[in-house]
């Protein structure tokens, strides 16, 4: 459990997802953990991945704090809406719909597969007012400056991510990265690290419910949390040295796995 969590922490921190897509199936299938405790552990794992890796990303200024905090408006309110309507929705239907959306979003991902840095859009309108621009330094010393665009679409995409986390407890990170990458045109590293920065807050928003229900089992969470924290620390080092194109490839693969997992869950193949 500990070792699996280390791997989940490494991958999660690089692609900006919480590692829930690794933790949940492994705990339920390999270890026979009940799905409720697996989701409880995954929420803790997401917070661990996020906070553990974000401390490095934020200090190294790869994370765009303003973009992150602006989009948290949508993800946090989305998470509350998701939790409020969850008991009235059919989760299998939702999983199929969102699984398919993730598969479709692979197309623009793959089309941009060789792109190291996107052509920076002009900073105007709401993006300018909100100061949604930034720059970071690559390990070779080159400074990458970028602007962002279409904040409303980014906000809408992140809202979907939030609703999804509140509804299904999974899949928030993927939609956050996609919103920043496809709509807002941020460099891949900035998108995944800013998503990583935000998922901790989204997960913390739903943690209260799981905790109160007793779904956070100390025996499961202890090895998972420790493993995740170690993994996230390693993952953060790897990301900072990686090329944007490499991260995009890894993300595309993880996205495909996440989409298939969601659809399989809907059909009852996975718990």
């Amino acid at each position, binding site marked *: 459990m500990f070792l699996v969590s280390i791997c989940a922490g490494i991958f999660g921190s690089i692609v900006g997802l919480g590692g829930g897509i690794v933790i949940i199936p492994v705990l339920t299938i390999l270890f026979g953990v009940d799905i409720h405790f697996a989701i409880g552990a995954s929420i*803790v794992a997401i917070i661990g991945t996020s906070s553990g890796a974000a401390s490095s990303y934020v200090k190294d200024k790869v994370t765009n704090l303003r973009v992150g905090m602006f989009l948290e408006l949508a993800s946090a309110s989305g998470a509350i809406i998701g939790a409020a309507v969850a008991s009235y929705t059919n989760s299998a239907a939702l999983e199929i719909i969102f699984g398919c959306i993730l598969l479709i979003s692979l197309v623009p991902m793959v089309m941009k597969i060789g792109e190291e840095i996107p052509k920076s859009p002009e900073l105007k309108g709401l993006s300018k007012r909100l100061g949604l621009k930034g720059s970071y330094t690559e390990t070779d010393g080159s400074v990458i400056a970028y602007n962002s665009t279409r904040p409303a679409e980014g906000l809408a995409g992140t809202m979907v991510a939030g609703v999804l986390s509140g509804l299904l407890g999974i899949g928030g990170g993927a939609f956050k990265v996609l919103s920043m990458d496809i709509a807002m045109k941020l460099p891949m590293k900035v998108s995944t690290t800013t998503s990583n920065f935000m998922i901790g807050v989204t997960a913390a928003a739903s943690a*209260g419910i799981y*905790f109160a229900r007793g779904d956070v*089992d100390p025996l499961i969470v202890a090895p998972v*949390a420790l493993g995740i*924290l170690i993994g996230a620390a390693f993952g953060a080092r790897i990301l900072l040295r990686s090329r944007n194109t490499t991260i995009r490839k890894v993300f595309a693969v993880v996205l495909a796995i996440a989409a298939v997992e969601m659809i399989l869950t809907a059909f009852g193949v996975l718990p």
Partner: protein
Amino acid sequence: MNLNDPESMNVVLGNVLRYGVILAGIIIILGTFGLIMSNSTSETGSLLTYNPNSVPHDGIDTSPAGLLNGLVAFSAFSWIELGVIVLIATPVSRVLISVFLFVAEKDKLYVLITAVVLALLLFSILVTPSIPGFHA
């Protein structure tokens, strides 16, 4: 530290996250050690293999009073639980401190944004679990 320097915001928030995570990690490690010391090997074996029948995941008191009693009694479970709470509190404190950092920067727009995020977050953590019909 000059809070008007935008670079220092990254350092402050980075440190909040780092120390939160380190503190949570230490408490969870101590709790896990306590668990291993206080249990027979057959039970601690479940840390590696996980036996759904032997794990006492029912009957853990998650109320503040129950947690406090467990902490005073040096219950390993309660200490692990405390570590998890510190971990959950880490991103929340990060948002809280961002509000103050934007106040110090006199960035009204972002003071508003982060304050709303904080309010949503506290509402979600503290209020929604007690609203019937809310499910996560």
